[in-house]
């Protein structure tokens, strides 16, 4: 049987893992890093760069460098969250015919799954190089709070990249699998997952190899990016106060600020203060202006306190749904890069009245969990089983616009449940089934995820026909809805057709393109740009940009690029 890799397709960074002969391996990328930035760049010479290379060039080429694409997966252009995010990204978003988000870059229009597929393809290639064989199957993780269309979009991305997505699992659940707790003993753990773009919290009960999720909650728009943004806002307003120049209008300056903010934030997890230096950030009549600022940990905590506090409510909700108190929790596991921040650790300690468990690598735990699940599906591991829950209530719209719940949120999946409905008019020959997800009593206040008609109902008085609506959620968390007319005993089951996303033929076309044209362009990017890039990176370093106390990673980067450069020369 062919190998199955586990992929953590993150908002800011992605990571790949595999279990071989019972041992976990995190697969390094072609530059020997254990995580790969989820960044895709289109350069002027028609090449596509993915990962570290793309991220390094981001400063020169902000409009054509796509990051945080995960925020737009399976979303509509007119979503409120999208409206906000447009302001935060330098690349251009446009609506598709069906209202989905599209990205206009390099004179082409791309769907979010296509761009995610480019990241996946790069990860796949690196895995193939590492394993020395073809990889065609993967388990991919998504935030627990991803809805049906976001999950579908993730599956589509896999397909376009030439990967069969054998399972979609939730990130916090994956992290639990990787936590390494002895599964013989029964215990309750909390996974607190604060990543680049999303916050998820899940409560699980472990015992005899079964990882049963009790409840899950979170915020799809709370993550490390928001912490960076808080720092950027601070720097921009300080600069405006002293120089009277608004840096917000300059995309290159903003990109440099973002890089510096992220580095400062990371360094402030270990240092008490950092100096941020951005020379030539702006030009005025008097000449070039430089940004120089000291950021202390105290100031950072003051700037981001509200963000850390915002994680408390989902945690409390998760406890309520699981019917547990903080003292019932045995361990709190921290996942996601942002949890390295001391302020977050203090917040977690306050919420759960317990020191958090630091035994897992917050950057790699999710990929490791995906790898374990891959091994279970391959049949190699037989003593682990995941039982996840659905993060939303699901139901249909009934008379008067009311939302009739069929599946309650936090129900274990797989699940199959049905309810019986009837017609509201005499001789009604069809019913329209509108499927919604959410918790509000009125359907219109929830999110519609699909609609279909059940036709051919025999003439009858209102209230007489019996229509069974069945909801089915599989282990991937993907929903199928069918309706059946019970009066005629004639089965008319219809699968739901989502009103968003890509069609089968679109995916096929993209997949073929990706297999030939894009593959060549990505490959071209990897080979040809190694040299050019080295020069660019060293020039950036020469300008002494960035923060103090970061030498190690920068050194490492330089070294590995140098290696490639040398290899090529050979």
């Amino acid at each position, binding site marked *: 049987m062919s190998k199955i890799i586990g992929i953590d397709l993150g908002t800011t960074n992605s990571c790949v893992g595999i279990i071989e002969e019972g041992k976990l391996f995190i697969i390094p990328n072609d530059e020997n890093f254990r995580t790969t930035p989820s960044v895709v760049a289109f350069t002027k010479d028609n090449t596509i760069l993915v990962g570290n290379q793309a991220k390094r060039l981001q400063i020169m080429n902000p409009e054509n460098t796509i990051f945080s694409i995960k925020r737009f997966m399976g979303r509509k252009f007119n979503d409120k969250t999208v409206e906000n995010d447009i302001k935060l990204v330098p690349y251009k978003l446009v609506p598709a015919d069906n209202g989905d988000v599209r990205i206009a870059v390099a004179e082409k229009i791309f769907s979010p799954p296509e761009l995610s597929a480019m990241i996946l393809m790069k990860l796949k290639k690196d895995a193939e190089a590492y394993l020395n064989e073809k990889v065609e199957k993967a388990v991919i993780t998504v935030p627990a709070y991803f809805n049906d269309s976001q999950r579908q979009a993730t599956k589509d991305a896999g397909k376009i990249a030439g990967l069969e997505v054998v399972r979609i699992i939730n990130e916090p659940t994956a992290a639990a699998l990787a936590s390494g707790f002895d599964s013989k003993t029964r215990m309750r753990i909390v996974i607190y997952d604060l990543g680049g773009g999303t916050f998820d919290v899940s409560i699980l009960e472990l015992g005899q190899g079964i990882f049963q999720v009790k409840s899950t909650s979170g915020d799809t728009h709370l993550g490390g990016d928001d912490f960076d943004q808080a720092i950027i806002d601070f720097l921009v307003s300080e600069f405006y106060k002293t120089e009277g120049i608004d840096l917000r209008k300059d995309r290159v300056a903003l990109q440099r600020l973002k890089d510096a903010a992220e580095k400062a934030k990371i360094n402030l997890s270990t240092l008490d203060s950092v100096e941020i230096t951005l020379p030539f950030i702006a030009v005025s009549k008097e000449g070039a202006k430089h940004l120089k600022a000291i950021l202390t940990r105290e100031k950072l905590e003051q700037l981001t306190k509200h963000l850390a506090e915002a994680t408390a409510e989902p945690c409390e909700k998760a406890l309520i749904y699981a019917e547990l108190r903080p003292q019932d929790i045995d361990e709190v596991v921290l996942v996601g890069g942002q949890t390295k921040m001391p302020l977050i650790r203090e917040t977690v300690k306050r919420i759960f009245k317990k020191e958090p468990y630091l035994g897992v690598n917050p950057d790699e735990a999710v990929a490791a969990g995906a790898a374990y699940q891959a091994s279970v599906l391959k049949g190699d591991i037989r003593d682990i089983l995941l039982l996840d829950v659905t993060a939303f209530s699901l139901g249909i719209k009934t008379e008067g616009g009311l939302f009739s719940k069929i599946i309650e949120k936090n129900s274990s999946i797989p*699940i199959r449940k049905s309810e019986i409905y009837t017609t509201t008019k005499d001789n009604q020959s069809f019913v329209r089934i509108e499927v919604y997800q959410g918790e509000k009593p009125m359907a219109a206040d929830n999110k519609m995820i699909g609609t279909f008609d059940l036709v051919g109902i025999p003439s009858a008085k209102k209230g007489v026909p019996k229509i069974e609506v069945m909801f089915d959620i599989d282990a991937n968390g993907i929903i199928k809805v069918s309706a059946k007319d019970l009066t005629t005993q004639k089965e008319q089951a219809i699968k739901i057709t989502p009103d968003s996303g890509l069609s089968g033929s679109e995916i096929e076309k993209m997949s073929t393109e990706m297999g030939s044209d894009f593959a060549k362009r990505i490959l071209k990017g990897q080979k040809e740009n190694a040299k050019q890039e080295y020069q660019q990176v060293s020039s950036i370093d020469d300008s002494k940009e960035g923060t103090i106390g970061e030498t190690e990673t920068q050194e490492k980067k330089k070294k590995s690029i140098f290696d490639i450069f040398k290899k090529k020369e050979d």
Partner: protein
Amino acid sequence: MTKKLNYYELLEIYPAATQEEIENAFRLALYKYHPDHNPDKPEWAHERTAEVVEAYKILSDPIKRKIYNFQILAPLKETIEEHKFSIFQIGEKKKFEDALKDFKEGVELYTTNKANSLLKFQQSYATYKLHESIYNMGVIYASANKLQEALHAFKEAERIAPENNHYKRVVERFQELMRDIDRARKTGY
């Protein structure tokens, strides 16, 4: 089609199983049926796992389990015993047939519309004193968690047909159930 198993049969445990035995059986059943462990028959695995999950949800909650236990003991009556009427009792026969019609409609409606089903049984009972009808009313009240009304109905059924041992047993078990639930609620189980 195979007969739908009750939750105890599905988890392969005795109805008197302890909470710990239920937990263990649930885990074993998951290993046996979960789609992850049955890649060759995903549809079957999905259906079975969904059932196992539902069974565990009910049986692991003491109050839900008690009510479920009672429902296994007292299913809805779907047939009515034949009555013989002499030639001089045409009016009675008509009344019985009307009651029978309502009874059947009530059974028909049971799965889809409990409120209308209950109404039909009430009509049936009012037309002709059928103990089956009033017993069914009790079942519906019990499933709707209206325990006082249910008990009243079962006692009435027992009063009309004292020779029926099933009613006697149901009344006894139902009183027991009410006491258990009362106690569980007080101690906060």
